[in-house]
C-alpha cells in the first residue's frame, strides 16, 4: 500500500507539472459545466416539455462523458511519458510488484477523473440552483443520480484500461491520445441515446449499461494486467 501511495503521489506531482495533462483535466470540465448550466437555463425557458427534457438530459449526460474523457490525458502521459523519459526500467527495478505498478497507474488516472467529475457536478447543481432555482426534480431522477455516481467509476475504469492498452503499444503521446479517444467511443454510445431520448431515463437502461460496462471493464483490465508485466514491458512494449 505504501508503494502504491508513493507511485500515486509521484504520478500526480508529474501531472500537475504537465501542461497537456492539466489542459485535459481542467479545460474540458470547465467547458462542459459551463455548457450544461447554459442548457439548463435555456431549457427552463422552453415551453415545449419534450424539448425541455432533451436539453436537461443532454446537460446531465456531460457528467457521464467527463469520467471517460478526463483520465485519457493522465493515463497516456503516465505510460507514454515513462517511455519517453526512459524511466520505466528504473521503476521496474524497484520492489514494486507488477500489480502495484498497474494499480498505481490506473488509480492515478481514475481518482482525479472521478473527483473532478463529481466536483463539476456539484458546481453545476449549485449554479443551476442559483440561476433557475435548481434542476427540475422530474429530470434529476434517481436513475440519473445512479448513473452519475454508479456508472462514472465504470466509465473511468474502462477508459483507463483502454488507454493503458493503447499506450503500451504507442511511443507517441498524441497518437496514443487520439487512438484511445476513438477506442472508448463504444462506451459512450448509450450516453448519446440518453441525451436524445425524449422520455426520462429509466433505471433499467442504467443497470444494463452498468452490466455491459462492468463486463467490458473485466475483459479490458484482464488484458491490461497481462500487458503490465515486467517481462512484457521490457521485451514487448514499443
Amino acid at each position, binding site marked *: 500500500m505504501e508503494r502504491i501511495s508513493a507511485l500515486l503521489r509521484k504520478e500526480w506531482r508529474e501531472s500537475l507539472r504537465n501542461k497537456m495533462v492539466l489542459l485535459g483535466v481542467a479545460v474540458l470540465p470547465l467547458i462542459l459545466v459551463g455548457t450544461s448550466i447554459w442548457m439548463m437555463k435555456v431549457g427552463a425557458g422552453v415551453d415545449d416539455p419534450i424539448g425541455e427534457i432533451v436539453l436537461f438530459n443532454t446537460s446531465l449526460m456531460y457528467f457521464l462523458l467527463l469520467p471517460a474523457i478526463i483520465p485519457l490525458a493522465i493515463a497516456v502521459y503516465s505510460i507514454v511519458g515513462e517511455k519517453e523519459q*526512459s*524511466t520505466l526500467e528504473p521503476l521496474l*527495478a524497484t520492489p514494486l510488484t507488477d500489480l502495484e505498478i498497474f494499480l498505481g497507474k490506473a488509480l492515478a488516472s481514475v481518482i482525479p477523473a472521478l473527483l473532478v467529475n463529481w466536483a463539476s457536478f456539484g458546481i453545476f447543481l449549485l449554479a443551476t440552483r442559483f440561476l433557475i432555482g435548481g434542476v427540475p426534480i422530474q429530470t434529476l431522477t434517481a436513475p440519473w443520480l445512479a448513473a452519475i455516481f454508479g456508472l462514472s467509476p465504470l466509465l473511468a475504469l474502462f477508459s483507463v484500461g483502454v488507454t493503458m492498452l493503447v499506450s503500451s503499444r504507442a511511443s507517441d503521446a498524441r497518437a496514443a491520445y487520439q487512438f484511445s479517444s476513438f477506442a472508448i467511443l463504444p462506451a459512450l454510445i448509450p450516453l448519446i441515446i440518453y441525451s436524445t431520448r425524449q422520455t426520462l431515463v429509466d433505471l433499467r437502461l442504467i443497470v444494463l449499461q452498468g452490466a455491459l460496462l462492468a463486463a467490458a471493464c473485466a475483459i479490458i483490465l484482464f488484458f491490461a494486467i497481462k500487458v503490465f508485466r515486467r517481462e512484457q514491458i521490457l521485451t514487448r512494449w514499443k
Partner: protein
Amino acid sequence: MITAHGLTRRFGDRMAVDALDLEIPRGEVFGFLGPNGAGKTTTVRLLAALIAPSSGRATVAGRQLGAENQAIRASVGVLTETPGLYKRLSALDNLVFFGRLQAVPEPRAAAERYLRLFGLWDRRSEPAGSFSKGMRQKLAIARALLHEPEVVFLDEPTAGLDPEAAKSVRELIETLRSKERTIFLCTHNLAEADRLCDRIALFKTRLVTIGSPEGLREERYGRQTVVRLASESPGIERALDLPFIREVEARDGELVISLGDPASENPILVRRLVELGAEIQSVGELRVSLEEMYLDLMEGENGTD
C-alpha cells in the same frame, strides 16, 4: 554474492544469453565487457530480477532468482544505460520517490545525503530535466545507491561525464568496494575497467573469458620485458643465451623478451646484456592494454561465429 549456473535467455529463436556461469563474491568490482548487442543488458535484467531466464538458475544477494524476485529487487541498485529520471520532478523528488519505493526509513534524509555527496544539494529543487548530462548521470547513480543495496549494477556509469565527474564516480566505486558492496560494472571504457575491476568477463552471448585483468594478460601474452637500447647492437638477440628466456624479438631499437618471472630474472638479464656490450636506455615491463586484449579476444570470437 552473485552466482549463475547455466543462465540462459532466448528471445524467440535468438539466443541473448547462453548458459552463463558466474561466481562473484561480496565486495568485488566485476567488469562485464562486450560489444553492443552482446547480451550485457539482458544479463543485468536477468540478475536484477526484471526478466525471467529461459533456463538456468541464479542467486543474487543470497536470494534465489525466480522465487525471491521482489527481495532481489530490494537488495540491488540498478543504473540503467540512460539515466531515466522524471524530468518534471525536482532532483529531490526523484530521489525521495525511489526511496519510498525501496522502503528507505528516512527517504528525505537519504536523498539529502546523496545529493550532497554528488554536489547537487544546491540544485535539489530544480527539475531533473534542466540538469546537464553529467548531473543527470550523478542523480541516477544516487538513485541506484539510495537504499544502500548489497549489489549494484552499473551500466556505463561514467558515460558522458566530464573527467572530474568521472573521477568522482570511480572514487565512489572504490568506496563502495571498501564497504563490501558488490559492483557489476558494464562498460566500454576499458581503461576504466582495467583500473577498477578485480575481475573482468568478456562476454558475447556466452562467456568468452573471465579472470583478473592481470591474470588474463599473463595467461594470453605471458610476461614480457622491454629493453630499449641507446645504440644499435646488431645480433644481440641471438647472443642472449640465458636459460629462462622463452623468446626474444628485436624491433625498432628495442628487445622484447618473454620471461617467466621478471622480478627475479630482469637483473640477470640486464647484467648479461651489459656484458654483451649493450647500451641500455631503459628497462620496463610490456603491458598489453586491456583494449588490445579485448580486440584480440573478440576478433577470435568473431572468427568462431
